[in-house]
């Protein structure tokens, strides 16, 4: 994507519980972009990080009103910005 000047860009692994973020896009390395998008994780979607499971993975997020658990390895290509 072209807006490389955006100051605060976070990767999925940088997220902490309680953070509210908006999805900017998915890097080319994200293998499951379309499937994640079908689940509601589209560019522009906002979500809140709820909590991490005991061994640091997966993470529970609140997106479009529901609770979704994602593995870090699968969602690492997602780039977000804080809101």
């Amino acid at each position, binding site marked *: 994507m072209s807006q490389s000047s955006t100051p605060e860009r976070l990767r999925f692994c940088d997220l902490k519980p309680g953070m509210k973020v908006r999805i900017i896009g998915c890097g080319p390395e994200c*293998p499951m972009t*379309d*499937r994640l998008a079908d689940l*509601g994780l589209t*560019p522009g979607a906002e979500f809140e990080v709820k909590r991490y499971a*005991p061994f640091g993975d997966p993470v529970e997020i609140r997106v479009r*009103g529901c609770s979704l*658990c994602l*593995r870090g390895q699968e969602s690492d290509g997602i780039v977000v910005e804080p809101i």
Partner: protein
Amino acid sequence: MITERPFTLALVGRPNVGKTTLFNALTGSRQKVANYAGVTVERAEGTADGGRLRVVDIPGLQSLRALSEDEQVAQAVLMGGDQLDAVAVVLDATDLERCLFLFSQVAETGVPMVVVLTMTDLAAKEGAPVSLADLERMVKCPVFAVDAVKGTGMDEFIAGVRRAAPPMDAGFELGFPPAVKAAIQRLSERADSPSLSLRDIRERLLFPVGQESGEWDKAVAVEREGLLGSGIQPRTLDAQTRYSWAAHVLRESAQGQHPGRALTDRIDRVLTHRVWGVGIFLALMYLVFASIYWFASPFMDGIEQGIGWLGGLVEGALEGQPLVQSLVVDGLIGGVGAALVFLPQILILFFFISILEGTGYLARAAFLMDRVLGWCGLNGRAFIPLLSSFACAIPGIMATRVMPDRRTRLATIMVAPLMSCSARLPVYVLVIGAFFEPIIGQWGAGLALFLMHFVGVVLGAPVAWLFTRGRKRQAMPLALELPRYQIPKWKDVLLSLLNRGKVFLKTAGTIIFFMSLLIWGLITFPRADDPEAAYAPSYASLPAEVQERIDFDAYVEQQLMADSALGRVGRFLEPAFLPAGFDWRMTTAILAAFPAREVVVPSLGILFSPGSDTEEDPGTLRDSLARAQWPDGTPLINLWNAAGFMVFFALCCQCMATLAVIKRETGSWKWPVIAFTYMTALAYVLAVVIYQVGRAVG
């Protein structure tokens, strides 16, 4: 009278929106329902409205771009496999936005539609009431609010399905960007096949398929490049557009907000906590198994007494006909009765499982354990199939259809039969009760039962790792959803118990009955005419200390069995199992249980029957096992071969039905053969190791 062709309706929707609850309410069927995604993995069919309405229930879909096998089933039904007159898209009012995403895809299939809205009460309670009129206006087809549990709205829905509207032209109402529409238009003019719809062209444009070699395909690729150049991400554009449309519909019809989950959040703060959550999970599992042990004893004693009383009654009635007496008392009552004693435990286990399923806790357990599964190459999607396997591996293996990745699915299928199914429960309870409880007490016995259920898990981990070796990437995200907590519906719990009870009694009445007859016959014949005279000389030749340990009557009884047809085969095979400390009777019971492991307890019941003429009070099977002797009169079973026997049953693949399901689900005989071989080998090796280590330790 003209017989009308019934109106065919398919129920389509996201997982866990209540399709099957609605299906059951419509058709009076009893399909399994629970509070997590992926319970329905096959299509089911029933009729409603006095046979005028044919209803097809299909697995839940996250998206029409099907990847896993259960989703393909759903897709096949939708894409014309069923000659549908209409589809009812089931929308969960508390998860409307994502449900509308799926709706927008279904709308493009061209089948007339109605909308069923579930959970409207809950959505209103949680601050996001849905206006039916507004929703109807936005989606352009009839909308019905239905509560299938209470039965409200059902009549209106049944009467209204025939008003199903042809779907809107979703493709261009959804609001794809002008650049995309223009590209589709250009491609449509160049298309060589007129059968391509605009929707098909859009799909080809946004979702590249591997082979693109023709002239037109090249044009598609060029247009796609063009879109990329203008800042559009083709791969997410489709979903993005649909979700914008869904958000728009939501704003118009439900005040645009998502319903709260305050209570569920509060509970989850504890139950999915990094430390407490795991502690509570383990404690809960311990309580489940320990309470199976505690709660079942009064029922078990009751059934035992009832069977003992029946045996005594029949024995008296058949006095004077020793063979018939033995057939009925030792063979049938001793065999089938020994199995029936364990019905309470199995029902209690199913009671707990269905409670856990009904509340939505299972998804939390999957969340907590996902990482552990990840270490062995599996994912959280494997959790529910594996957990179901604790009830029975067959539904567990079928539940793996929700797993889209073939390799991980196969690995899950291969370890599912290692999970300790309810048919193993009787062996544990029997052996723990006879040999361990006297030493470690009731609490310890509960713990032992709990630990036995861990044997398969602990060994399953490296096995799964081996089967998934070298696989890092998966085709689909975990995407586990944590549903709102619900109070379990007692009807579902009761139904689950009833179903299981029926299955158990059917097994008892068929395979256990026939195997009991067979074993009794083989253990009774051939038979010496005058056993006491026949075995007196050999008893006299026994060393004095052996004679001291074993009296003549017991010796005759032992020899009669040992010289029977089954006894000869058993003794021939005994050397194979001697390293594990199993005598020929234990060996025979194991071999008899290969078709179905339920047979083992009845076999033990017949093989260790105390013999009606030698004992005044025959007692229970537990007592006869504890009293059993080697031919030299030393106690047959000690803690070590008892533990080995349980571990053998925990691991061995003694279930033809499971093997048949593995064949069906994998489409090849290779996998059942592998499962059978590795499990049986594992069981044997571990039983031997435990006994040998035990002997060395003393």
